[in-house]
C-alpha cells in the first residue's frame, strides 16, 4: 500500500525480512516509522522502500538488549521523528533445543532479546506516552509463551517472561491510557528462513506477515472502551 505518513510515530524494534519488515510497511501507511535492528542491511533496505513509496522511515541500528544503546536509539527517534506513539517490540530469533542441548549463554541471550529488551524499550517510551495520556505498546508473542514444546528450553521461558511483562504493563498502563497488546503468533510465519527449514510447506500452512501486521494495526486503533490485551492469530489449517 502507498505510504501516507501521518502525525504519529511508530517504532518497530526487531526488523528482519519477515514480520518486522511487514509491520514497518503496514504502519508506514499512517505513521512516520523508525526501524530498529542490530544489523543495518534489512532496515536500510526496507526504510528505502518505504521512502520510495512516499513514506517517512528512518533505520536505526541498535541492540535492544543493551540499555545504553536502547536509550541512544530512543533519543535519535525522538530527535528525528518525534515522540513515539506506537512501540512494536518484535524481538525475533527462536533458539531451538532441549534442556541438555541449550547452553547457559543461549538461555540468557534468549531472555535478554525477548524479555529484557522489551522491558528496556518500554521504560524509554512510557514517559512520553504518560504525559500525553495515550500510546500503544504491542509485543510479538509465540506459541512457546503459552504452550512450549520440549525443544524450547530457552525460547519458552523467554516468551513466558515477556508475556508476563506484557500483563504487568497492561494492568499498570491501561488505566493511564496506554494500550498494551500481546499478539500470540501461533504458527510458522511465511519468510525465507522458515521456508528453507520447511521446503514442503504450502502457502496455506503459514501466517502471512502482512496479515499479522494487519492484526497489530487493528489493535493499535481499537476504541479504548474495548481494548484487547492478548490476541492469538494462526493459519486456518493450524492445529491448536
Amino acid at each position, binding site marked *: 500500500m502507498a505510504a501516507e505518513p501521518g502525525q504519529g510515530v511508530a517504532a518497530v524494534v526487531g526488523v528482519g525480512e519477515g514480520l518486522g519488515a511487514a509491520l514497518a510497511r503496514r504502519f508506514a501507511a499512517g505513521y512516520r516509522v523508525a526501524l530498529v535492528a542490530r544489523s543495518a542491511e534489512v532496515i536500510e533496505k526496507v526504510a528505502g522502500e518505504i521512502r520510495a513509496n512516499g513514506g517517512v522511515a528512518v533505520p536505526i541500528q541498535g541492540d535492544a538488549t543493551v540499555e545504553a544503546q536502547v536509550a541512544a536509539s530512543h533519543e535519535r527517534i525522538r530527535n528525528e521523528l518525534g515522540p513515539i506513539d506506537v512501540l512494536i517490540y518484535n524481538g525475533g530469533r527462536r533458539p531451538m533445543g532441549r534442556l541438555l542441548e541449550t547452553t547457559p549463554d543461549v538461555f540468557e541471550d534468549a531472555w535478554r532479546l525477548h524479555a529484557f529488551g522489551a522491558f528496556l524499550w518500554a521504560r524509554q517510551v512510557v514517559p512520553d506516552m504518560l504525559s500525553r495520556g495515550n500510546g500503544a505498546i504491542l509485543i510479538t508473542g509465540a506459541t512457546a509463551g503459552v504452550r512450549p514444546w520440549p525443544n524450547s528450553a530457552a525460547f519458552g521461558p523467554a516468551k513466558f517472561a515477556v508475556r508476563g511483562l506484557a500483563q504487568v504493563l497492561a494492568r499498570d498502563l491501561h*488505566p493511564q491510557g496506554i494500550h498494551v497488546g500481546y499478539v500470540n503468533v501461533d504458527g510458522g510465519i511465511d519468510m525465507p528462513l522458515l521456508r528453507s527449514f520447511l521446503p514442503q510447506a504450502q502457502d496455506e500452512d503459514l501466517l502471512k506477515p502482512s496479515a499479522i501486521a*494487519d492484526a497489530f494495526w487493528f489493535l493499535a486503533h481499537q476504541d479504548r472502551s*474495548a481494548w484487547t490485551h492478548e490476541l492469538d492469530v494462526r493459519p486456518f489449517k493450524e492445529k491448536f
Partner: protein
Amino acid sequence: MVNPVAVVTGVGPGTGAAIARRFSRGGYAVAMLARSRDRLASLEREIERSRSYPCDVTDEAELDGTLEAIRTELGTPKVLVHNAVGGAFGNFLEIDPEVLNRNFQVNTMALLYLARRLAPAMVAAGDGAIIATGNTSALRGKAAFAGFAPTKAAQRILAESIAREVGPRGVHVAYVTIDAVIDLEWTRQRFPNAPDDFFIKPAAIAEEVFHVAHQDRSAWSFNVELRPFRETW
C-alpha cells in the same frame, strides 16, 4: 451483486443491534433473531438490508423454519453471530436449578443447533464465520453466577471444539470475551454513578466482531478479549 448474509441472534437494543448495524454497513443482508417481535420490527425499519425473524433459538423446530425462511428470502448465511444470552444472578443455593438448565439451552445448545445447521454450507463454500459473544463467566465462576457461568464456559468450549473441526476447512470460529459492563439503558440504571469510561460501547464490540469475521485466513484469532482501558482484571 448479491449481498452476503449474516445471522445475528439475540438482537436487543444493545450489542445485537450494534452488530446488525455494523454488518449492514459492511454490505451484508442481516437476519435478526430474537424473541421480541416488536423490538425487531423497529430495528428492521432502521437498519438497511435487515430483516427480522422473531424466533426462540432453543426451539429446534422453530429454528428450522426460521433458517429455511432466511435461506429463501436472503440467501445462504455466510456469518453467524450467536449473541443471544440467558443470564441470572444468584449463588447456587439461591437459584432455581431450572435457571441453569434454561440458560444452558440459550447459550450453549442454541449455538450447537445453529452451527449444525449453518456450518455445512460454509464448509461446502470453504468460507464463513461463526462467532459467539461471551464474557468472563466463560473463564471463571463467581459466587453470584452459579446459574450462568457454567453455561458460558460450556459455550466457549463448544465453540473451540467447532473451531478445531471446521477451521481447517475454511470456516472461522471465534469467541469474543467481553470483560466489561456493556453501555445499555439497564446497566446505566444499575451503575448510576459510573462514568462513561466504565462501560464498553456496543458499537466498539460490533467493530471487533466485524473485524474478526474478516481476518485473513492466514492469521485467524480464536480467543478475542475486550475490555475498557480502565477495567481491572
